[in-house]
Structures are given as structure tokens and as C-alpha cells.
């Protein structure tokens, strides 16, 4: 059982300052794995850690291990552009992402960890008449589903974002935008660490530097996972490995309808506060926000080739920056400070896979592609429910692997906002 954790609070911060912050308790344990768990989660990123937390918190299942090949949250959770929103087109996707957004609201309190969740709104710009028709359609679909959204004209966009080039003489003039006020950003590392700390506190073992090399199956039922450090028995195994999901699926002779691509992101040098919302443009193609440190956080489309290298090609960076400068000419002389890439598991319909498999006790949660971060709590919550009850959560049901047999794909390329 884990030791009693210090509850984070303003008073605690003051108290620790008196001893020069030298006596903070470790945020989670580093235990040796037990021989057997009720559930093993493969993948210690945001989604895997959230799954473990909700298994314990909602279902009382605490005999759980999260097995991570590197360090917690070191994959895509560490590499995204931090945007959180739920303005998806189709009912199925809208409900899943809105479920997640509702969990974000209050999550810092729930986890007793400052996630820096900032509901500063998200704008999706329209630069053509067809863009504006798509925007009208999506906002109306959102509102019919009880999700906040408004259509703004150029003047309203300019008021919200003074430094956005809204002049009619721009190469791609801004005709308007969709606006989701409850959307925003969150600190990506914090959500991994927040879920990790809370899960550890509930007795869940976090096993790092322990790559899974095989899954043992017997009589059509999962028995456990082989790792670099030995075998760990499990009654149920949930795979949440994002770009490496295909490698895990191979261990049980499964293929998946996903392809792993590089997705690059970058930050500028810190600037004084000049952008207090999130701006995304499908047409010009780029998205940008400003972190609390002052850096402009920028991203755009995937590299088109398959890639596990956590890096991509320079032409994508050039096109991304061209789009950003088209929207924000004042940034043309600002320097980029840092640039990196992740491995995104892309599905043919830009929607995730949350599914049991033909093997009893084996479940997959993957295919989130370019839009996983915003779904972190929602994904963990419904996947935990799916594992605990051995059937898809109602919100997860449309996202089973079956849809690639039935043909009932849910096309969210537009809402994904990231060129595929």
C-alpha cells in the first residue's frame, strides 16, 4: 500500500518554503512488479495512466500495473500542442470528446494536481465560403448536441485576436471562425503526472523502463505480458501504446487499421503575453497558442510517410511556419526555440479505436492519431469502464474495430484540424 501523500495546497507550498523546498515527498513509488495483477495496462502515457486511475477510482480495481517502456508520459503526451476542445462533427465523436471536456473541468481538483487547464477558447478560422459553410454546419451540430459553439464574423475574430491578420488583402482572408469558449489548453506533462500520482496513491504500481516484448495467450484467453524484466501475469490486459500499438498487436498476430506517422511541433522564444486564446486554421494550415511561459506553441500536419523516429522532415516545418506567419505577420522575426516530433497512430477515419478483441481479456485503446491529448481523461474513463465490465462503454461502442468490417466509419478529418 502506498505511503500517505502530502496533499498539495497553498498552505503546503508556504510550509515547504520554510525548509527551502528540500523535503517534498516523492510523487510516486518505483515498485518491483508483483507476479500477478487483475489488470495490466501497456503504455504509461496520459491515456494509460488515466485508465489505471479510473479503474481504481470508479471501479475499485486497484490490483493494477501500468507497464511503460520508457518514462511516464514520455511519448506523445510530452509532445503535443496542448489543445483541449470537443467541437467534433458527428454525434458519436462529439459525445466522446465532450465527455472528456466535462472531466477536464474539475480534474485539477479531482487529482489534487495543477493541470493548468485554461478554458481560453478555441477559434477554427474560415478563409473561403465553403470553410464558412462547414463552420456553420459544425457549430450547429455542436449546439444540437449541447456543446457550446458560435459562428463569428471577421470583426468578432479581430476583436478576440488583435494580432491576427484579418485584412481583406491577405492571401487567404479570414471570413470568420467557429468559437468554442469552453475549449482551451492544459499542461501536457501535468496531466500525465497528475494521473500517475493519483493512481499511485490508490495503490496502482507504475513500472517504468520495462518494455513489453510479448503477450502470453492460452486457450484464447490472455495470461499476462512478457517484459524486458520478466513475465507479469494478468487477468486482463489493456493496450494503450499509441504509435506503437501495431507492435503490440503483432504479439498476438493481430493487424490494426492504423499507420504511425511523425507529427512535429515547435515553440518560439518566450514573448510577452500577446495571444490569449487558441487559433487553428484548416485552410492555411497551422494552429497556435501561447503558453504561460510566453512561448508560442505551434503545430500543423503530419509527415506523410510512415515514421517511428519521433522526428520529421524540414519542408513540413517550413509550410507550418509559412501558415503561421500568414496569420500572424508580427511573428516573422521571432525565433523558434525548440522543435520535436511524436509518433501518431492514424486511423482511416481520424477517429480512435476503443475495443475488446477476439482474445478474452485483451483490449485496445489506440488510433487517436493527432487528437489524443484532449481526450486523455475521457479515453481513460471509458476504457477503464470497458475493461472493468468486459464490454464497450456506450460512448466507446461506435469506436470498436468492427466498424472497419461494417463500414460504419466516423469521418472526423475536418474536425481533427490536422492535415493527414
Amino acid at each position: 500500500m502506498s505511503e500517505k501523500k502530502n496533499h498539495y495546497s497553498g498552505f503546503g507550498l508556504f510550509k515547504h518554503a520554510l525548509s527551502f523546498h528540500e523535503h517534498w515527498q516523492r510523487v510516486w513509488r518505483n515498485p518491483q512488479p508483483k507476479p500477478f495483477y487483475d489488470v495490466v495496462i501497456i503504455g504509461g502515457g496520459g491515456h494509460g495512466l488515466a485508465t489505471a486511475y479510473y479503474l481504481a477510482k470508479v471501479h475499485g480495481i486497484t490490483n493494477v500495473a501500468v507497464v511503460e517502456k520508457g518514462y511516464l508520459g514520455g511519448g506523445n503526451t510530452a509532445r503535443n500542442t496542448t489543445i483541449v476542445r470537443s467541437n467534433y462533427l458527428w454525434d458519436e465523436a462529439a459525445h466522446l470528446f465532450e465527455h472528456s471536456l466535462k472531466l477536464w473541468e474539475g480534474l485539477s481538483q479531482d487529482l489534487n494536481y495543477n493541470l493548468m487547464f485554461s478554458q481560453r477558447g478555441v477559434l477554427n478560422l474560415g478563409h473561403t465560403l465553403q470553410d464558412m459553410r462547414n463552420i456553420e454546419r459544425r457549430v450547429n451540430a455542436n449546439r444540437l448536441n449541447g456543446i457550446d459553439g458560435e459562428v463569428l464574423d471577421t470583426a468578432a475574430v479581430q476583436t478576440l485576436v488583435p494580432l491576427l491578420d484579418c485584412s481583406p488583402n491577405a492571401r487567404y482572408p479570414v471570413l470568420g471562425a467557429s468559437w468554442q469558449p469552453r475549449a482551451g489548453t492544459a499542461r501536457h506533462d501535468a496531466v500525465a503526472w497528475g494521473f500517475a500520482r493519483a493512481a499511485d496513491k490508490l495503490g496502482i504500481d507504475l513500472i517504468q523502463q520495462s518494455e513489453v516484448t510479448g503477450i502470453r495467450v492460452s486457450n484464447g484467453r490472455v495470461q499476462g505480458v512478457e517484459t524486458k524484466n520478466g513475465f507479469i501475469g494478468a487477468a486482463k490486459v489493456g493496450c494503450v501504446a499509441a504509435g506503437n500499438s501495431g507492435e503490440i498487436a503483432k504479439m498476438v498476430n493481430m493487424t490494426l487499421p492504423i499507420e504511425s506517422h511523425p507529427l512535429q511541433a515547435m515553440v518560439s522564444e518566450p514573448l510577452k503575453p500577446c495571444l490569449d486564446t487558441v487559433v487553428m486554421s484548416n485552410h492555411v494550415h497551422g494552429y497556435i497558442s501561447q503558453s504561460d511561459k510566453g512561448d508560442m506553441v505551434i503545430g500543423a500536419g503530419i509527415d506523410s510517410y510512415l515514421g517511428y523516429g519521433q522526428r520529421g522532415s524540414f519542408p513540413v516545418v517550413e509550410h507550418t511556419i509559412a501558415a503561421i506567419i500568414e496569420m500572424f505577420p508580427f511573428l516573422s522575426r521571432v525565433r523558434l526555440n525548440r522543435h520535436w516530433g511524436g509518433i501518431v497512430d492514424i486511423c482511416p477515419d481520424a477517429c480512435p479505436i476503443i475495443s475488446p478483441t477476439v482474445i478474452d481479456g485483451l483490449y485496445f485503446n489506440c488510433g487517436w492519431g493527432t487528437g489524443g491529448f484532449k481526450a486523455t481523461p475521457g479515453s481513460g474513463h471509458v476504457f477503464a469502464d470497458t475493461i472493468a465490465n468486459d464490454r464497450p462503454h456506450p460512448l466507446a461502442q461506435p469506436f470498436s474495430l468492427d466498424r472497419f468490417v461494417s463500414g460504419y466509419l466516423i469521418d472526423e478529418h475536418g474536425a481533427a484540424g490536422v492535415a493527414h
Partner: protein
Amino acid sequence: MLNIYCPYCEEYREEEEFTYAGEAHIVRPPDPECVSDEEWGRYLFHRNNIKGNHREMWFHATGCRLFFNVIRNTVSYDIEQVYKLTDTPPEIREDQHK
């Protein structure tokens, strides 16, 4: 930036001249009316998504505008071999890094 050897133009050209065209050697079921929904779904959507040496197609969009095959390592991004669509697919050599 990848530098890709086009086997038709017979020179290395920059990545920006090409379009990635997906996994190579995917065979369309000869009689679509006779395959199960599972098989058809697998053909349409499932991919091998290789972590390592991957056979893929590229299209020389701003050059000769022909398709060709490439064996590229999806971890190091090194291009091991290039071959035309009509060539017998070469074996992936032992000395090529995984």
C-alpha cells in the same frame, strides 16, 4: 529532408518532389464479390505499419510522375533500396539495419 533516388529519372531528388503513396504490394482481392466483410475490411483498412524495413510506394509528383517502390527503414528513415513496380521485389538484405 529525404533524398530519394528516382529509378526512372535515374537521379536523387529532394523529398518535396515526391508524394508518399502508402504501403507497397497490397493485392486487391481478385473477386470482391466473393470475399467476406472481414477480408474486404482488412484489404481496405488494415496495414502492416512496419517498424523497421518497410516496402512502400512513392510518386514523383514534380518529376516524371511515375510510381516506384522503396524499402525504407521507418525508424532511421534510411532508404535501403529502390525498385520499379515491374521489378521482382528484392529481398531485404541481412546486412540492412533493422
